[in-house]
């Protein structure tokens, strides 16, 4: 029903009977708006709108110096080697992708001339290819023209295993070909509803062929330009000291009118989040501080009478507690948490249900995350179009206790519930990080009241998130009953995020725990929903399938969503940054400006 209604509406937009804004508002009403909604229009035959621009300055330059503070400084400046987001942020100052994501998840053109759509022939109806038209007249910082050859080269460079790029995953399953000097065609192996993965956003930044062509493959690390980027971006490279500072100056030939606003740019690294917040909000030494994950109390105190404020960007990052479906305490063939076992306690749905009622999300928000968090009943929290409206959550120690009573878990002499001689004792692990330890304490307290004994464990983040096969404390091995962290969602599409929990991706000793389904949860309906969604080119049906997948997950209680986390940045009062929850902080840097004071 929703389907036909939508089709009619898309037709109305096409004929001009309904305006775009009206359409988006209607979509909002049925819970289907934001980033993918515009892509929906695109595939429905209407071109995807470019996100509105709020850029005010009417001339290039004159904005003085822009001072950015990244408390983890970028350590390299080649987007194809960017191990972490900090490196992508740094490379993005100089290199540019074809398009990027604005704060609402709309696509914004950078090096592309137009957004591919069915109407302009950019998209194929079968979802098997995309044609990108490039902006004419764009020049690299050294004066050479930017052409389709550069785009094709990036694909060849990244997909070569010998180059050892981190972007290989995006590029190895596609084919990129040059149509003419300003047109490239990307071909997919199977229908791909989300076609904006390669060459979009900071990880899709494009490096110049003429400087890297000799350094493809095993020689990649010898390229002198790995450390001195020559890009197309608004700022030209001046200086780079890994982990310390990046400096740039205005690019007078930048391809966007009146941009950039600032004459020089500096990105300083090092230190910690709290003092970064202080340097931006309280003393005003810097204009912008990245990723200020500091307790809200502290930020509020700094903001009082300060020179800056905090800004928030909504993305899809969810802090969750994962439940182990296998037994971490029984070893089978030298492997704990083996697929051949079943968790003795958590395999009982009543226990899982009770646990989900014992996480006081409201308290976690109030005490810990403050303005940087939203309470949610879902694992998948964005883009809006994919967010389920069918789920609810509640916190009730009484109901949880009752549920456990009914399931036969009776309190023993020590107050801890037991059934068939099995005590309700759980090991709950997470990475070391202030808010996480506090959340652990809140959950533990509630569990205790309900007669569940929870033992807390904290692992250093560098170990917890490592893929070290020899270490028992990694999140992938999951040698605990519960574990809490978040997996960042790096693009406005749920495909990668949800694919992880397909049963074929279970982490085992056999695949050296590189499988990404760490709760080791197997559900046929979920597998079917994901398989269906990945082949579905009808975007409305596709969204419905992802919503269904989320609901199955929540019904089975594989995850207990703790908090939908927002990006927190510190920013000088006069600075007007554009920060998207769906992209790197520097992805929209060309639109940043400073409001004249006075």
């Amino acid at each position, binding site marked *: 029903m929703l389907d036909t209604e939508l089709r009619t509406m898309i037709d109305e937009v096409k004929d001009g009977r309904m305006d775009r804004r009206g359409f988006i508002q209607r979509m909002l009403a049925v819970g289907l708006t934001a980033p993918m909604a515009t892509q929906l229009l695109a595939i429905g035959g209407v071109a995807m709108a470019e996100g509105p621009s709020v850029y005010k300055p009417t001339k290039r330059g004159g904005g003085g110096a822009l001072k950015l503070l990244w408390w983890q400084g970028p*350590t390299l400046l080649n987007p194809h080697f960017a191990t972490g987001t900090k490196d992508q942020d740094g490379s993005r100052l100089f290199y540019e992708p074809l398009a990027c994501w604005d704060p609402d998840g709309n696509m914004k053109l950078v090096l592309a001339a137009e957004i591919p759509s069915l109407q302009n022939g950019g998209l194929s109806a079968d979802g098997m290819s995309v044609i990108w038209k490039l902006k004419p007249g764009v020049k690299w910082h050294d004066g050479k023209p930017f052409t389709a050859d550069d785009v094709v080269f990036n694909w060849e460079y990244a997909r070569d295993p010998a180059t050892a790029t981190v972007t290989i995953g995006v590029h190895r399953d596609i084919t990129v070909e040059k149509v003419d000097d300003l047109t490239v065609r990307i071909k997919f192996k199977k229908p791909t509803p989300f076609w904006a993965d390669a060459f979009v956003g900071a990880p899709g930044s494009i490096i110049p062929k003429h400087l890297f062509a000799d350094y493809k493959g095993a020689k990649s690390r010898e390229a002198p330009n790995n450390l001195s980027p020559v890009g197309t971006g608004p700022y030209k490279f001046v200086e780079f000291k890994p982990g310390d500072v990046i400096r740039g100056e205005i690019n007078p030939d930048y391809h966007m009118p009146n941009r950039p606003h600032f004459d020089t740019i500096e990105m300083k690294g*090092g230190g910690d989040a709290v003092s970064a917040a202080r340097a931006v909000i309280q003393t005003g030494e810097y204009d912008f501080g990245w990723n200020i994950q500091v307790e809200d109390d502290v930020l509020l105190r700094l903001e009082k009478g300060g020179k800056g404020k905090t800004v928030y960007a909504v993305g899809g990052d969810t802090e969750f507690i994962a439940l182990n479906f296998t037994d971490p305490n029984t070893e089978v063939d030298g492997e704990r948490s083996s697929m051949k076992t079943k968790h003795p306690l958590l395999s009982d749905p009543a226990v899982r249900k009770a646990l989900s009622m014992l996480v006081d999300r409201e308290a976690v928000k109030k005490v810990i995350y403050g303005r940087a968090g939203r309470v949610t009943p879902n694992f998948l929290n964005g883009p809006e179009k994919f967010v389920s409206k069918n789920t609810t959550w509640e916190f009730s120690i009484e109901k949880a206790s009752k549920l456990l009573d009914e399931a036969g878990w009776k309190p023993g002499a020590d107050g801890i519930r037991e059934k068939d001689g099995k005590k309700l004792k759980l090991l709950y692990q997470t990475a070391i990080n202030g808010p996480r330890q506090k959340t652990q304490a809140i959950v533990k307290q509630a569990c205790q009241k309900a007669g569940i004994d929870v033992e807390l464990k904290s692992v250093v983040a*560098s170990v917890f998130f490592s893929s070290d096969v020899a270490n028992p404390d990694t999140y992938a091995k999951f040698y605990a009953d519960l574990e809490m962290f978040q997996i960042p969602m790096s693009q406005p599409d749920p495909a*990668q995020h949800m694919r992880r929990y397909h049963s074929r991706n279970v982490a085992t000793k056999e695949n050296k725990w590189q499988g990404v389904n760490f709760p080791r949860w197997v559900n046929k309906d979920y597998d079917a929903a994901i398989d269906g969604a990945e082949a579905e080119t009808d975007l409305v049906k596709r969204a419905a399938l992802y919503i269904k997948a989320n609901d199955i997950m929540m019904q089975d209680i594989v995850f207990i969503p703790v908090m939908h986390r927002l990006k927190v940045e510190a920013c000088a009062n006069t600075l007007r940054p554009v920060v998207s929850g769906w992209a790197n902080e520097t992805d929209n840097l060309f639109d940043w400006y400073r409001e004249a004071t006075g």
Partner: protein
Amino acid sequence: MSQYVLRRLLIAVPSLLGISLVLYIVLALAPGDPFSELATNPNVPPEVGAALRAKFGLDDPIYLRYLRWLAAMVQGDWGFSFVSRMNVDTLILQRLPTTLYVIGSAQILALLIAIPVGVFAATRPYSIFDQIANTFAFIGFSLPTFFTGLLFILVFSITLDWLPFVYSSDIKATGIRWLFEQIRQAIMPVMVLGLFQAASMTRFVRSAMLDVIRLDYVTTARAKGLGQPRVIVKHAMRNAMIPVVTLVALQMPAVFGGAIVTEQIFRIPGIGSLLISSILSNDTPVVMAVTFVFACLVVLFNLIADILYGWLDPRISFR
């Protein structure tokens, strides 16, 4: 003399080999993975991490990796950073000037305070000056640098707004202004480190001086009718400086090694902050190079201290 130096240098070789072996094994056994950040990025398939590990030889047995590292080190190749994908020596050389400037100034400040104060206090033991100097020395070395650092920031940057607390490695100014800015931003870290060092060094100078000043030959010098300044500087101080020289010489490697905590607080891009960020990101080649170079410097400065003894006290001979 030259024979002695040669022998000492030869002895240093096996000890450095031992140090490097221990360092390498400890680092290899330590948990963590330089490509751990990839594991949580859903964009990156897990095979990428595995391929990178293979490319950088992380999956080889430890002894092979050690021998490879040693062979490279002997040829002057300090290794290749996993995280920055550049040569470790460039990375270290980039950081060295800042560390030398900040930590070196702090050491000089410490000496400039410690020697006069310590000597003066020793010449008038238990006087008011001595009492005050002692009290401050105790306070000084009881307060850790991370505390005084934050205190300084709160007072001088936030309340008074006099000094910046983010250190900038190259200032965009020339001439006198550059010099002024360079000094201004270094004041707080140099003070924090210098006062901490000065406190313990003052105590040390004072007690060394007290030991010497009571000796007969000092009394003899006074009996000869020499003036107080001459007795103190020429006769007493020269002997009292021998243990102080040891202390200072052993501090010298630290000038190159940086101060981890202080550098982190003030965002000084020195060797210390390089070391800590490399440890946190499991960038073993950098950690290995920094610690090993540090070990070499300790051995070297020990030797220099021993040679300096001979110059300060000709009775000490080298055999």
